[in-house]
């Protein structure tokens, strides 16, 4: 057992192998029993995995600095700061009037507080222990810390599903899986960081509850669910997956009292607890997305009742008749209740986000604001390869092993894996949800096959049968091997296969490390590029601009920008914004989109009505930074046009083509966004051998080089022109 686990792990943690070997040697000196050795080894491996999961996420801190990344994390950071400064009561009732001017946002009631409370608790604990840390450091390291915790949960989950070997492999796999790292590097202070931990914890505890039928585990899983609800909107996945799982068990005739206890307790307690989160509120009883869970809950009661009646009645005929009546009655009542609830509006229909999960094309046609987010795009096959690497190969193998040994637990992981993989195909960001399942199932594959092969390798040809009989847990698999025993070169073949798996796992480690360091450790608030001589060039324009705002504008100045930058402006610039990344009010965003895509004088009226003082645009024409506002502009037009039909997408296109050069549409060349981005750009030579006004992000010479602004004036442009800030002029004095 020890040896096999060791093999599997060696491959995963090649650099640690030597250490392990020496550990093993030293253990022999102590002459421990095999069991104790195994335990020590397991703990040792887990500890190392725990540390590994943490340190592999520190690339961004080493490369750049300890800073918060991207967009949403800035909001989370700001709220956490507020929580630690003002306390929980004020946080819970926080009405923020610095965002969504002039509407304001009830932050306390529209966020998932789990992340902030977690970070604040860590912070307060550290303070109590008199570690004088800054809250920012806590926030930066929260996600890696929880990733480490996730590995422990993965170990226990794997152990529950298969055996401790699979658990160890799962822990190691998930520790460095890029799909998870993408959301949990240091600085990526987002809900998902803790939510994946909570998700896996809930699933593990629920499976444990189903396996044991224990109320205690079930209550624990309800609390896990509560933590998940408090942390991330993805809890909706749990509240739908578990009923599906229960339904599958019911249909396959695996109904048991264990399941009854586990589900009912978890559902009722979890629902009551979830209602304590203001943002979720009564959704568990009122929203269409949560109705599956409730339906299954009632179905369980019917099942139990019918079971009881069957127990009481001896007459099968009578029971059949009773069953018919009950089932029709129950289904009828359920359907009627659902219909009435829907019709009366008590049960809200499914939201657009939910629809777009089931039907990937839905958002594109109906909700541009969801479709405009890059992480909501359907996943390209290459990102599966990128994020899972060899796990994609192990996954089907793992499914095979799961089907070979169907238990309540493996059915769960199979369901989890398949559904989440579907969702991962629908939206890029949901790869994250699939990652734990893929890791666990792959771990089963790796562990089971290595174990089987190791049995072959270690068996002496004659004594093979005795080994088989000793085979600890996977009897069926071992039986299969004993059949194959007659094959020639069996031992050597098995050895080669083990080497092959080892090689795959090694390359997995290499790949993961490479991906982490190259792709997922960029803070995206500080951009890095390779200079002409291969040296690293850092563009720190965002922070430059935000600090300019903070230092040079009046404290109550209102800044209009596209919503992507809202959180950053409030968090770093400390200024009021019109819209931000919490896209709760589509009309408000559309108004900004309309202003950006109107002519200057029309935009001026809109800006006056919103009391806008400054306009901020992001422009990549000088640096070749492609995710700038000009490239996002069509979404502004679409979102603006969705609410204000005066804005038509076709006005900005030429023959269905989006261009900014001489051939661009006249409206495009004169809209506010174009003017703000290309103001004074016509005078600038960006590349040697190109005419002035050469846009490097799009590789064209711009069409309108003589941009004159009438109602705005340039206030600040960062050193690389990435962020440009304009001041809205007051009305003309004499007119």
């Amino acid at each position, binding site marked *: 057992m020890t040896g096999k686990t060791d093999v599997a792990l060696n491959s995963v943690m090649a650099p640690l192998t030597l250490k392990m070997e020496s550990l093993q040697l030293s253990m022999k000196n102590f002459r421990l029993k095999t069991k104790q050795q195994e335990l020590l080894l397991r703990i040792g491996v887990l500890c190392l995995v725990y540390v590994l999961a943490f340190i592999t996420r520190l690339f961004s801190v080493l490369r750049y600095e300890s800073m918060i990344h991207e967009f949403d994390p800035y909001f989370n950071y700001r709220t956490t700061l507020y929580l630690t400064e003002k306390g929980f009561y004020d946080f*819970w*009732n926080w*009405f923020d*009037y610095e965002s969504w*001017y*002039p*509407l*304001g946002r*009830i932050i*306390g009631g529209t966020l998932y507080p789990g992340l902030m409370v977690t970070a604040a608790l860590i912070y307060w604990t550290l303070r109590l222990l008199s570690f004088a840390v800054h809250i920012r450091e806590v926030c930066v390291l929260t996600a890696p810390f929880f990733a480490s915790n996730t590995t422990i949960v993965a170990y226990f989950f794997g152990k529950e599903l298969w055996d401790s070997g699979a658990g160890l492999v799962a822990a190691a796999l998930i520790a460095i899986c890029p799909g998870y790292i993408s959301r949990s590097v240091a600085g990526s202070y987002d809900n998902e960081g803790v939510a994946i931990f909570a998700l896996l914890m809930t699933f593990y505890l629920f499976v444990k509850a189903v396996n044991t039928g224990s109320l205690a585990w079930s209550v624990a899983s309800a609390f896990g669910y509560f933590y998940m609800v408090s942390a991330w909107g993805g809890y909706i996945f749990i509240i739908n997956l578990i009923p599906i799982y229960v339904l599958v068990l019911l249909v396959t005739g695996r109904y048991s009292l264990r399941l009854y206890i586990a589900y009912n307790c978890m559902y009722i307690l979890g629902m009551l607890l979830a209602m304590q989160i*203001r943002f979720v509120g009564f959704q568990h009883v009122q929203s269409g997305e949560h109705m599956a869970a409730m339906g299954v809950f009632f179905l369980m009661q019917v099942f139990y009742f019918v079971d009881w009646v069957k127990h009481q009645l001896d007459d099968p005929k009578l029971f059949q008749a009773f069953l018919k009546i009950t089932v029709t009655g129950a289904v009828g009542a359920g359907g009627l209740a659902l219909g009435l609830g829907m019709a009366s509006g008590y049960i809200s229909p499914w939201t657009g986000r939910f629809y777009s999960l089931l039907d990937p094309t839905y958002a594109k046609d109906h909700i541009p604001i969801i479709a405009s987010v890059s992480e909501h795009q359907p996943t390209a096959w290459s990102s599966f390869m990128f994020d899972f690497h060899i796990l994609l190969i192990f996954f089907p193998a793992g499914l095979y092993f799961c089907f070979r040994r169907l238990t309540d637990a493996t059915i769960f992981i199979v369901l989890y894996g398949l559904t989440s993989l579907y969702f991962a195909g629908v939206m890029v960001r949901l790869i994250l949800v699939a990652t734990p399942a893929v890791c666990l199932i792959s771990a089963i594959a790796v562990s089971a096959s290595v174990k089987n092969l190791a049995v072959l390798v270690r068996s002496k040809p004659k004594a093979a049968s005795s080994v088989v009989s000793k085979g600890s847990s996977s009897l069926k698999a071992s039986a299969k091997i004993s059949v194959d025993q007659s094959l020639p070169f069996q031992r050597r073949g098995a050895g080669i296969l083990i080497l092959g798996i080892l090689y795959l796992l090694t390359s997995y480690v290499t790949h993961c490390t490479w991906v982490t360091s190259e792709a997922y450790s960029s803070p995206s608030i500080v951009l890095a590029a390779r200079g002409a001589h291969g040296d690293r060039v850092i563009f720190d324009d965002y922070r430059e601009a935000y600090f300019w705002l903070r230092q040079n504008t009046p404290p*109550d100045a209102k800044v209009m920008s596209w919503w992507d930058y809202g959180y950053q402006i409030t968090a770093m610039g400390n200024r009021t914004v019109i819209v931000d990344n919490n896209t709760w009010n589509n009309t408000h965003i559309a108004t900004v989109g309309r202003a950006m895509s109107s002519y200057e004088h029309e935009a001026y009226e809109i800006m006056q*009505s*919103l009391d806008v003082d400054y306009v901020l645009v992001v422009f990549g024409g000088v640096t070749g930074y492609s995710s700038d506002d000009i490239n996002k502009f069509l979404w502004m037009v679409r979102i603006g046009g969705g609410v204000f039909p005066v804005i038509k997408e076709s006005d900005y296109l030429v023959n269905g083509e989006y261009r900014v050069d001489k051939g661009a549409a006249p409206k495009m060349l004169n809209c506010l966004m174009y003017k703000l981005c290309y103001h004074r750009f016509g005078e600038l030579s960006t590349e040697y051998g190109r005419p002035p006004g050469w846009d490097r992000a799009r590789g064209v010479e711009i069409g309108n080089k003589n941009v004159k602004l009438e109602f705005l004036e340039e206030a600040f442009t960062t050193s690389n022109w990435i962020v440009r800030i304009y001041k809205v002029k*007051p*009305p*003309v*004095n*004499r*007119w």
Partner: protein
Amino acid sequence: MAVLRLIAALLMLSPILSLAFSPENPTNQRILVLLDDLAIKSSHSIFFKSLTDRGYNLDFKLADDPKLSLQRYGQYLYDGLIIFAPSAERLGGALDLPAVLDFVDSGHDLILAADTTTSDLIRDIAAECGVDFDEDPEALVIDHTSYAISKTDTGHTLIVSDNVIDSKVILGEKKLEAPVLFQGIAHSLNPANSLVLKVLSASPSAYSANPKAEISNPPALIGSSISLVSVVQGRNNARIVISGSLDLFSNKFMKSAVKTFGSSVEHGKSGNEQFVSELSKWVFHERGHLKAVNVQHHKIGETVEPATYRITDYLEYSVEIFEWTGKDWKPYVADDVQVQFYMMSPYVLKTLSHNNKGLYSTSFQVPDVYGVFQFKIEYRRLGYTSLSLSKQIPVRPFRHNEYERFIISAYPYYGGAFSMMAGFFIFGLVFLYHK
């Protein structure tokens, strides 16, 4: 000793310092007068004397004086500017069109007079203020029905008009006693400019043409669309008077008797003196200058201004409004001052009641909508400086524990919950111990 000398110097300076224009003392004190010709100083002495009598320091300069400068070290040297130099093609020193406009845009006042010969510079300044003089350089305002009977004027270019704007703020309490004599060029108001106003307009029979030439085309400016004297009050409350006639301000016109053609009444003295001096009082902020101070708002029953209100709070709002009389501030009395509680559109619009001492106040309930509101007063009345106050105040929703704790209509639910608990407890006892 040095200290004493310093104090003495300060004491000597203090009257000068206190004379300077300030928000507390909005009447102009130091005025630069630009002339074509120093003879105007004597030919228009009545007007100038009326100004100096009212306490202004006039600084007469030739328009092409090379040392002209409106500001030094970023500070304006003057509070007002009178340009009586219609034929000046360019101004001396550092003065040019942008300098004059900057002077106005930084809140200073201007009187601009054109005449039969008006240079492009003067036209440009006027055009920037929304006034377009007749483009024909030879054209004068001609009126064959309401002209003043005169021996020298044969072309009916010396016209009379009593067609003045009906505003006591601009032209004083007293009605114009005699018609105003005018000889000069016509101008029209740019329709795109919403701030420019006709103060003196021509009669419907007037037109603008060259009196010496025959008219081949219908004149561009005719009838009462011709403005003779116009005023502009900028958004920063700077005031501008533009006149098509320099003679309007002259001693000759002020003193001359007026007999309008077709009228039997002969006025011994024209209305020019009254008109000009009242207009100069307005333009130099002796009248119609309002200030709003001491804006206060608080919850009813409290006195401290909160940082934020809660929806459905009751609040009181008050502001004091004063009017400048030329010497001191006296309470402004009007029944049409309104306050808005505004977030993208007014949610509350209330007329303020006042106590005749300048204190305007009202109270209302905050609407049941949260967001960032503003207390807004947008008070714009003809002739008065505009009052535009806005004060931002966030309105927050209820805190989670500010709702009613127990609601009567929910008693059945409370009953249900507690009876359930009791029932479960009893059931548990019976189930466990009853065999």
